[in-house]
């Protein structure tokens, strides 16, 4: 999980142009400046490219919900990487 979190943090820093951004599992879109629908898709595309995973429409949507956190994203990506091995 920590490796996945670290890789995602690099992607977040690129997409949000914030080299000081530190991710923690409890963070939501509210906690990160500029996390709107467009940035959300840019983030998804960047994660797909960097981590070699693919998200379904329903997953992209759920990750945008108010109750969704960075922890949910980490868990989802880790699950996808595990099942692809």
């Amino acid at each position: 999980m920590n490796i996945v979190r670290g890789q995602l943090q690099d992607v977040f820093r690129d997409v949000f142009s914030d080299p000081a951004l530190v991710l923690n599992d409890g963070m939501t879109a509210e906690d990160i400046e500029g996390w709107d629908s467009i940035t959300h898709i840019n983030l998804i595309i960047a994660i797909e490219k960097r981590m070699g995973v693919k998200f379904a429409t329903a997953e992209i949507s759920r990750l945008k919900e108010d109750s969704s956190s960075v922890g949910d994203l980490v868990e989802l990506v880790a699950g996808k990487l595990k099942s692809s091995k």
Partner: protein
Amino acid sequence: MSLASLQFLTALLIVATAFPYLPGLRWRQATLAICNAGFVYLLIPNGASWLALGAFLASGYLTYLLLRKWPSRILLSIYLFLLVTTFLIIRKYEIVTMYLPESTLALAVSIVGLSYMLFRQIQFLVDAFEDQIDQASWWGYLNYQLNLFTLLSGPIQRYQDFQEQWNRLDIVLDDRHALRMAYFRLLMGLIKMTIIATLFQSIYQRSAEALSLPAGSAAQLAPISAIGHFFSVFYSYPLYLYLNFSGYCDIVIAGALLVGLILPENFDRPYLARNVIDYWTRWHRTLGFWIRDYLFLPLYKTIAERWPKRAESLAFLCYFFAFFVAGIWHGPTLNFVIYGLLQAVGVSAAKLWERHLLKRRGRVGLKEYLQSPKIRASAIAGTLHFECFSLLFFPADVPTTLHMLRTVWRSVI
């Protein structure tokens, strides 16, 4: 049958009272299924409509089974194309009816809640194709599509959420306070829908009629009277629409809770939104989210993957496309297209303004701007008036709305 009718409320209270005493899941599912079937029976007017509804439901489930066996994008695309075309024919959209013979159009097919059923069907099949739905039974699918609490006007619930609840049908109101609050919400919904909304509707109708008089008699309206009627139309219709629709949602959400179903919320104080983007996360939320997830996001994602450098600018095209569809989904006439396009203009303006502020003030400056109470109050007032203006085009056709505006103009000038 209206949800505010005595028959519906009596039936709901009987079922809600009996529900906790029903022995097990099968009895509960059977009871709700009978209620769903009875509700649909009262709303479908003729044999042709029954046939069309049957074909709509059966084709959706058959396509689901085929997609599970052969997850083919071509199959999904062909089915969705046929589905949307059939919807446009049944709802008599000119874009397709102009190519059809009179005999086809003479068929009196009418399916209540078809627009909502269409969006649920698309969501169900896209999610099934992308392997986001566990085994869906015909029984569960039918009750999902014909669920009496969401049949007429939403909220648009995901199949996965419905399935999870349908397969348990637990008592979700597990203490007296929660139960009282559900009945209180039901009562508030009834009051909003039948008393307060009706009051604003009558105010709107009286003023709209006064402004819709033929051109010759318009001169009889004194300027002050014309302005009064204009503001009455301008504010009372949005109030009516909100109270009527949110009252309806209060009734169905509370009613569903009484029988173990949790529906998504559809409203979150929409007239306190600070811009049009914010507004669409508060007004008819499940429609806004559906449009975002199944139209805007896939379209923008495709564009951003192919033309990453031009994606930011092309996002505005996606806004216009998504809101154009949202507009015509409400009905086949030009006024709904105008309403949708006005929303796209509002969303684009909000996005451009945010980008401008970010460029000029940076992230810290933007945060300060957003936190200012004065700016927040002005933004809320501006958004409210923009939405009131957009809704001028919602209840009447374009010539009628323009005639009303001309009447006010002629009386004042």
